[in-house]
């Protein structure tokens, strides 16, 4: 256990009742964060919880609508990154935001290089750079070499060194370990612990539970833009932390199973030892027709990576796939589409819809791609097909010629679903199909998943909403730290059993 700073010490930074809305959507609702000197403060939450908005407000990228930020007791409003740095808040992002084409020394000093007679004094700059890096164990680094010639871990430490040198009160580490290997993570943690011992307040954002328990002194959890709680790590069990993040109390089992005993159809696809190093550990998966395989796990646990692998967007580096009893190679999405697979990605704004195209055009996209451009569908056929889906899925749109960007989130989601249904797929992968849509549309999508399944379609559904997964899944795969850690079948499927599997200690098999 690390020595704790006495609670009597005054906070370095206090953010109080921070509220922020984008148009009509409130993304942060009276959220508070208190940072003590010499603590590592883990900031946790699923997608859309408001972590990144809060960080952007602290670093000056956004301005909050109401609430106060105090640094050493003084009210401040960071205007931009540079101002936040002056106030003492430094940030290191997941993707190293330095310049690989400049030297290490230039990266540390750009914007403030020492000059002599108007020219950059390289000797002094490089000497100072070595002095800055020396405590991080990088005294042997050639500071006159391009930053890009070093590994991501070294770049990450250079970024931290720069942030600490510039700011020196609060250091925000936004998923700093995402692209590091185990040994590099150790080095980074040693650096962070030393900085903590020196009295820096460190905000640590990660998706890895183990890292939270290994490093953090205090945890603040956000969910749906609201503060769930802020507790010393010692007062929390893994189970309690997962409960805070996912927002379920274990006591009452609220989720109703809609599917009880759906007869299993024929085996459609088999994946054996399928995996990709660094993305998802090898897993075995059998998909039968007419079943819903639910996938649960925290953000960053490898859910989306698994879906991308199944759909051929990424190629596996181990294992084999069999579809209809024949061995297949899914090297690109086209291969998967040809086999009758469909994929509705997680972020429909960037990966799914083409905002300026009409509802009809958005629906026709996948079918046309499958038929090939040489065999166009007539306008009449397209309109009829689009109409059919608009009716079948109850898509609320003035007409099929409406640009899709004018539709609500739930209706956009249905259009994307229609796009894949138009290709008459046999296996449909849905990544967070109900994210960001209203309650009514939510229920409809779930009903639709059930109906499609009854019609013999196989579905692979990823969702953070545990009730939802429990409601429609025949089986549930639970992922943790890029591994399938548990497969729950039939009567074992419940929110409680999923949460237990997510929260289990590494190595421990969830009961």
């Amino acid at each position, binding site marked *: 256990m690390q020595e704790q700073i006495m609670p009597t010490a005054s906070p370095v930074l206090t953010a109080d009742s921070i509220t922020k809305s984008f148009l009509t959507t409130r993304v942060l609702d009276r959220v508070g964060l208190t940072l003590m000197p010499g603590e590592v403060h883990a900031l946790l939450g699923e997608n859309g919880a408001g972590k990144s908005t809060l960080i952007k407000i602290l670093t000056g990228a956004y301005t909050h609508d109401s609430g106060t930020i105090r640094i050493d007791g003084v009210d401040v409003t960071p205007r931009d990154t540079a101002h936040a740095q002056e106030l003492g808040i430094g940030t290191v992002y997941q993707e190293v935001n330095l*310049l690989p084409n400049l030297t290490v020394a230039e990266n540390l000093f750009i914007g403030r290089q020492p000059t002599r007679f108007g020219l950059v004094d390289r000797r002094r700059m490089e000497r100072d750079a070595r002095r800055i890096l020396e405590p991080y164990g990088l005294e042997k680094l050639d500071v006159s070499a391009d930053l890009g010639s070093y590994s991501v871990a070294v770049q990450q430490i250079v970024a931290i060194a720069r942030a600490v040198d510039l700011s020196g009160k609060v250091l925000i580490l936004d998923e700093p370990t995402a692209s590091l290997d185990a040994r590099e993570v150790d080095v980074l943690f040693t650096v962070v612990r030393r900085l903590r011992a020196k009295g820096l307040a460190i905000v640590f954002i990660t998706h890895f539970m183990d890292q939270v328990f290994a490093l953090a002194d205090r945890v603040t959890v956000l969910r749906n833009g609201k503060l769930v709680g802020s507790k010393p790590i010692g007062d929390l069990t893994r189970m309690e932390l997962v409960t805070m993040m996912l927002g379920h109390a274990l006591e009452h089992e609220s989720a109703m199973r809609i599917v009880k005993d759906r007869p299993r159809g024929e085996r459609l696809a088999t994946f054996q030892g399928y995996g990709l190093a660094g993305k998802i550990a090898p897993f075995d998966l059998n998909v039968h027709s007419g079943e819903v395989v639910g996938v649960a796990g925290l953000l960053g646990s490898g859910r989306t990576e698994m879906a991308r692998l199944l759909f051929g967007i990424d190629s596996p580096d181990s294992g084999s796939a069999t579809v209809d009893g024949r061995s297949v190679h899914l090297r690109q999405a086209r291969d998967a589409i040809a086999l009758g697979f469909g994929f509705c990605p997680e972020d429909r704004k960037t990966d799914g819809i083409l905002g300026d195209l009409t509802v009809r055009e958005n629906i026709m996209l996948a079918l046309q791609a499958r038929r090939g451009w040489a065999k166009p569908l007539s306008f009449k056929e397209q309109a009829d097909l689009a109409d059919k889906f608009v009716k079948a899925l109850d898509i609320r749109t003035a007409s099929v010629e409406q640009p899709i960007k004018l539709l609500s989130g739930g209706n956009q989601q249905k259009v994307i679903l229609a796009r894949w249904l138009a290709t008459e797929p046999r296996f449909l992968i849905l990544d967070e199909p109900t994210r960001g849509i209203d309650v009514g549309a939510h229920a409809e999508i779930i009903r639709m998943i059930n109906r499609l399944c009854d019609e013999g379609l196989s579905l692979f559904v990823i969702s953070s909403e545990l009730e939802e997964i429990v409601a429609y899944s025949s089986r549930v795969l639970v992922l943790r730290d890029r591994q399938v850690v548990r497969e729950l079948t039939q009567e074992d499927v419940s929110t409680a059993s999923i949460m237990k599997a997510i929260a289990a200690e590494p190595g421990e098999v969830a009961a």
Partner: protein
Amino acid sequence: MSPRLWPLAATLSIFLIAYAVCVWQFPNMWSTRVLGNFLTDNAFLGIVAVGMTFVILSGGIDLSVGSVIAFTGVLLAILITRYNVHPLIAFTLALALAAAFGALMGAMIHYMNVPSFIVTLAGMFLARGAASVLTRDSIPINHEFYSTVTSLSYRLPGGGRLSVIGLIMVAVFVVGTILAHRTRFGSYVFALGGNATSANLLGVPAARTTILIYALSSFLAGLSGIVFSLYTSAGYPLAAVGVELDTIAAVVIGGTLLSGGSGFIIGTFVGVMIQGLIQTYIVFDGTLSSWWTKIVIGGLLFVFIVLQRLLVYASKRRWRKTPAIQIGNMPEVA
């Protein structure tokens, strides 16, 4: 050798080998006379290429330079011959105007977030159009200042002459090298070309730097226009057509990454000299069409673009071994 130096080394090797082949075939090409003419004949191209190097290093492009050269030439001819303005005053006016024009383009590129390609394309048409509005014909300049300057030269041993405009180009390259590789402004240019978003987060003054880059490019195009007018003793609205493309070619052959962020001013000098060498070779040969220059330049461009792709690929693959990291004492925190 750092991978960053490879293109420069390649360019230099090509120049030296090509020159050796030329001398082997035409021993007369090994003389200070030829070298002196190299500098004089390519002075206007070299000067404008320095500005273009800054623009390309920052990840942009400037298509307006050829037109700015022509406009400057026409403006000088009119001011000097029709309004009897002293050439030095006309030069100052032309340079100020060119710099302001470039600053305006830079401001549009930054504040309106329009690609430099589009803005400078507009600038290209504007400057060429303005030059044609001033006159449709070539205006000869007969001023004693012009004849004095063009007659001035430093005699090299072996009969070569180092002209004033050749020396201006050499000076521009020296100043450009210092500016790019030894000042804060220079590092901002490289930073913007490396990754504009990161550069912003690191506190690089993007607005000021972008405006200065395009002001510098247009200023040097103006200076190049002055040199061109001294060289030809005339102003013609259709002069220097396509020079922007020759310039871009010289910069790329000189080893500057077309996507920005990596390169050397001195490489551009070699790039310009390679173009000069090809032209000189054609003159010495006497039977070849001057269009062979374009063909060879085209071929070289292909080679260098492929080389750049390989280089980007190689630098992504090749990480130095991470040095063993032993954590010492952390810095004191305020």
